[in-house]
Each structure stands twice: as C-alpha cells, then as structure tokens.
C-alpha cells in the first residue's frame, strides 16, 4: 500500500479530530485574548441596518422569533443585535413566535437586551412578547386580516386588546417593518410568501436566517426582502454596524457573533484544505492507476 492509498483510506476520525481542534483552539484563544477579526459589511447586511435605522422614533416593529435553542448558536447574536438596534432607535417592539420554543427565545432576548440595558422601556407600552402561536402559515394568514385574533393574549396571559402598544393595530400591515429570525419552517420564506407579497408593499421585511436557509432567501433580495443576514457571518457584519453606530464601550454580549467568526475562519480553512487534499489524492491516485 503506497502513501496515496493509505491517505485515501484515512480513518475519518482523524478528520473529526482536526475539525474539533480547528474550532476549539480559536475559541480558547479568543476567549483568553479577547481579540476579534474586523468585519466589512456586505450589501445584504448593510441593508438590514439601514432598514431599521430608517424607521422614525416610536414606529412599531414586529419581530418574529422563529427558531429554537438548537439554532441559537447561529441566530441568537442576530436577535440580540436586532433588538439592541430597535431599542436604541426607540422603536416599539412587538415579539411573536411561530416556533413552539420561539416564545422562550424572545423572552431570553428581551431579558438580555431590554430589561438589562433599557430598563426605562415598559412592557406592554414600549415592548411586548406575544409568545408562541400554533398553526404555522395559518397564523400568517390570520394576521393579515386580524392581528389580535391570531394573538389574543401576550406571553403573560393578558388580552392583546388591552395592550397600549397594540392600540390602532388591525392587521400586520400596521407594522411598517417586520424583522424575522428564522431557522426553517415556518420562517422567512413563508413570511415572504404569505405576508410580504400580500401586504401590497406596506410591510417591509428583513430576515436573519441560518446558513442552510440563506441560499433560498437570496432570490427574494432586494425585492421582497429589504435585507438578509446570512448565518453567523451576516450576524457579525450587522453586529459590528450596530456597535459602531452606538459607539462607546461595547458589552461583550453584543460581540458574540464577531467572536464566533474566529472558529468559523479556521473551520472554513480546514474544509478548504480538506477539499484540496481530497482532490489531490484523487488525481494522484488516478495518475498512479494509469501509469
């Protein structure tokens, strides 16, 4: 057995080990030194920032938390940064969830951003979490005709009809901006299909989605989607934009995505190296076979 054959038959557990190291070592390194890589925002991420920045103070925005803890690694930094920018811009934030655990994610994000750093904002007036509603696209169709019918109570059990923040809201069209953080079905694609296309241009939507989903969302940008945050990279770009605009000393919780880019970089480089190595071996093996 020559070298090429041996490498071709390499036990995949060595590959696993390399991947583990490529991710673990940078985490430790970043964790100890606190450095992050700089980010240059791509147009899709800059568009998300601009869409929120363009809203006048006091505008109601709808934030849909369509993910669960399994995807929080990728999506939580987006949700945190989105709420951070909305709170900073003094927008009124209405959170909803079409994923069973999305209501909890909304609750956590609210606690982390609003309750911790914007204690002046009052629940029910400046922000509210309406929690999870079962029914997938069904809910989207209902919010188009009667928002409060789809969400009769908020996460605390109070009737939405009595909430000051929702006074004057008939349908989802009364929210000029829809922010969606989505890990799959139902998510960004369904919001575009059922709500944005049916809203006659009244609802502008930006989406933060997982790496898996983003290729399917790009066909909608910049038409039906005003901006996209694709995976942790999009989150990092957006995070750096928000942090730059707010300035000052940035709390570490608002730099989570940027920190995560380091393991990302080494993981990607390893993948690239593996693809190159695999193909080199393949071609060497083929040459050997021919000779």
């Amino acid at each position, binding site marked *: 057995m020559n070298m090429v054959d041996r490498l071709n038959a390499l036990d995949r557990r060595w590959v696993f080990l390399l991947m583990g190291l490529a991710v673990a070592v940078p985490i430790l390194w970043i964790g100890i030194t606190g450095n992050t890589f700089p980010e240059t925002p791509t147009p899709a991420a800059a568009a998300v920032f601009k869409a929120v920045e363009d809203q006048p103070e006091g505008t109601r925005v709808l934030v849909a938390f369509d993910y669960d803890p399994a995807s929080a690694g990728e999506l939580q930094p987006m949700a945190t940064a989105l709420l951070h920018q909305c709170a900073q811009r003094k927008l009124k934030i209405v959170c909803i969830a079409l994923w069973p655990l999305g209501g909890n994610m909304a609750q956590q994000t609210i606690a982390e951003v609003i309750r911790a750093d914007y204690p002046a904002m009052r629940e029910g007036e400046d922000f509210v979490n309406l929690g999870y509603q079962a029914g997938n696209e069904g809910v989207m169709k209902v919010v188009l005709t009667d928002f409060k019918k789809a969400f009769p109570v908020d996460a605390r059990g109070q009737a939405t009809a009595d909430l000051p923040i929702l006074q004057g809201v008939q349908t989802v069209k009364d929210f000029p901006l829809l922010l969606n953080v989505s890990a799959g079905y139902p998510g960004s694609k369904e919001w575009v299909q059922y709500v944005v296309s049916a809203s006659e241009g009244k609802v502008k939507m930006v989406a933060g989605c997982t790496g*898996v989903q983003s290729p399917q969302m790009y066909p909608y940008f910049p038409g039906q989607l005003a901006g996209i945050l694709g995976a942790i990279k999009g989150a990092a770009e957006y995070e750096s934009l928000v942090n730059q605009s707010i300035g000052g000393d940035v709390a570490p919780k608002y730099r989570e995505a940027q920190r995560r880019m380091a393991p990302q970089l080494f993981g990607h480089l390893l993948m690239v190296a593996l693809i190159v190595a695999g193909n080199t071996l393949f071609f060497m093996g083929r040459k050997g076979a021919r000779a």
Partner: protein
Amino acid sequence: MRNVRRNFRSPWWWLAIAIGCAVGLILQTRRAHAADGVEAAAAAPAAESHQGIFNENRLPLLTWIIGIGAATTYFVARSRRGKPPTIRRIAALEAVNEAIGRATEMGRPVLFIPGVQDMDNIQTVAGITMLGRVARTAAEYDAVVEAPTCRSLVMEAAREAVQASCLAAGRPDAYQPDRINYITDEQFGYVAYVGGKMMREKPATCFYMGCFFAESLIFSETGNSIGAIQIAGTAESSQLPFFVAACDYTLIGEEFFAASAYLSGEPDQLGTLQGQDAGKLAVLAFIVIGTVVATVASLAPSAAWLGDFSALLQKAMGG
C-alpha cells in the same frame, strides 16, 4: 356501487366535474358582479373585490390548477387506451430493486426513513407512498423493512401502507408492526436513535424519502461509514447537496414526487407524469414568451400594446 366505482375511476368524469364547477363559479361571479355593478360603481371602486362568493383574484390560479388537472386526466386516459408514454431512465429508481435484493442476500434489514415531518406535509405523504412500494418489493424478496418514525401519525400511516403492501404481495405474514415504531417527535432525539441503530444493526440498504433537514448528512455519513447502499429523495433543496454528495443515488425535487408513479409502471400513473410534463412545458412557454415580450416592451416603450401584452402574461401568472 360497481357503476359508481367505474365512473369514479374514469378521469373523464372528473374532468367534466372540474370544468362544470369552474364554469359555474365564473358564471356565478359574473352574475353577482352584474347585479352589484351599478351600486359598486357608485360606491367605491376599491370595494370591487368584496363582491360575489368567488375570489376573482385567484382566477389565474384556478385556471392553472384546472389546466394541470385536465392535462393529467387527458394523458391518463390516453395512456389507458394503450399509448403509455416512454419515461426517461431515473437511475435512482432503477437501483431500488437491486438495493432491496442486496439486503436479502446479506441477510440484513432495509432501513426506511420517511422524513421528520408529520402527515400534513406532502413530502411525508410521498415518502409513505414510496414505503408502500419498497415494502411490497421487500415482501416479494423476503427482506425485512425497518421504519422508525418521528411522528405518531406517520407511524400509523406507515403501518397501514406496509400491511396492505404485504397483503398485495401475497405475503401477509411478512407484515411485522413492531418493525415500524414511534421514537420521538424531537428531531435530534430521533436522529440520535437512528444513528445508534444504524451503527449497531448495520442495515444493508437505507432509504431516506421525505422531508429532511439537518439530519440528512448525519444519516448519510453514518450510512456511508457502515457501507450501506443509500437512496435518498427529498424536495428540501437545502439538503439536496448533502444527499447528492454522500448517497449512492438521489432523487432531486420533482423526481422524488415522480418516484412512486415511475416504480408502479402502471399506465395510469405514467400518464400523470406526462401531465406533469405538460405543465412544465406550459411554464417554459410562459417564461420564454413572457421574458421576450417584457424585454422588447422595455426597449420599445412607444409600443403600448406590447406593454399591455406583457402585463397580461404576468397577470396570467398571478403577477
């Protein structure tokens, strides 16, 4: 009853009903429209969409559905009259029998995963249909099919389909309900179970047919490491790359929905594939003509009729 059943099988009967319904609906709306027309014009032009019980905005949609339905029924009838279409080879489906035969030879089970969604997802329905076909062949070849499921309803449907397939294969004794069981609704709990099961039981052949998310690669890499033949089919485009890379054969998107009809080899079912193709050709024609007209219209803004024609084509597509 027999008469009713024969009628029921005749596609022409359905076509007649479909066209009848459509014509009735349109007439109904037109009449309601004419009656209300005067007041409506006097009131507000925006109120127009609130009249009649037929949702006029969806007329193009109705036309498309009736069109595809009519094409399908036509080709089914034609195929039944002895002119079945020749269907191109789909490698993944040619391999199904051989893959099941391999399991029989090796004395190991066939693993069938019908996706991780419930019965309200059409991919799961298509997956169960495939399970029916696979179970029938397996019963004939005397192979064992294992189908752990992620939803209670899917388990029931899978048992139903496998039982009837064994019966149809003349091997009612081959049906073992304990081989088809419910694990958990939690996606990754299910994945943990199936991964462990694959490692321990080393199935000779794995089918992944249905709606898959992140588990696609965990299944197919584990299957690869135990040397199983793997045939996948899904309409989740985000998971196709992984199946394409790691499985022996993959049914891409539409091919997955055609699989059951292809495997059946029945003239009726092959006819529906031709109907599907007719729909595709119509879409292609619309896209080509629509794009050409739109391009010419944008370059020659003075020719207003071109612009109108382009708008009409878009409207026919619901735009």
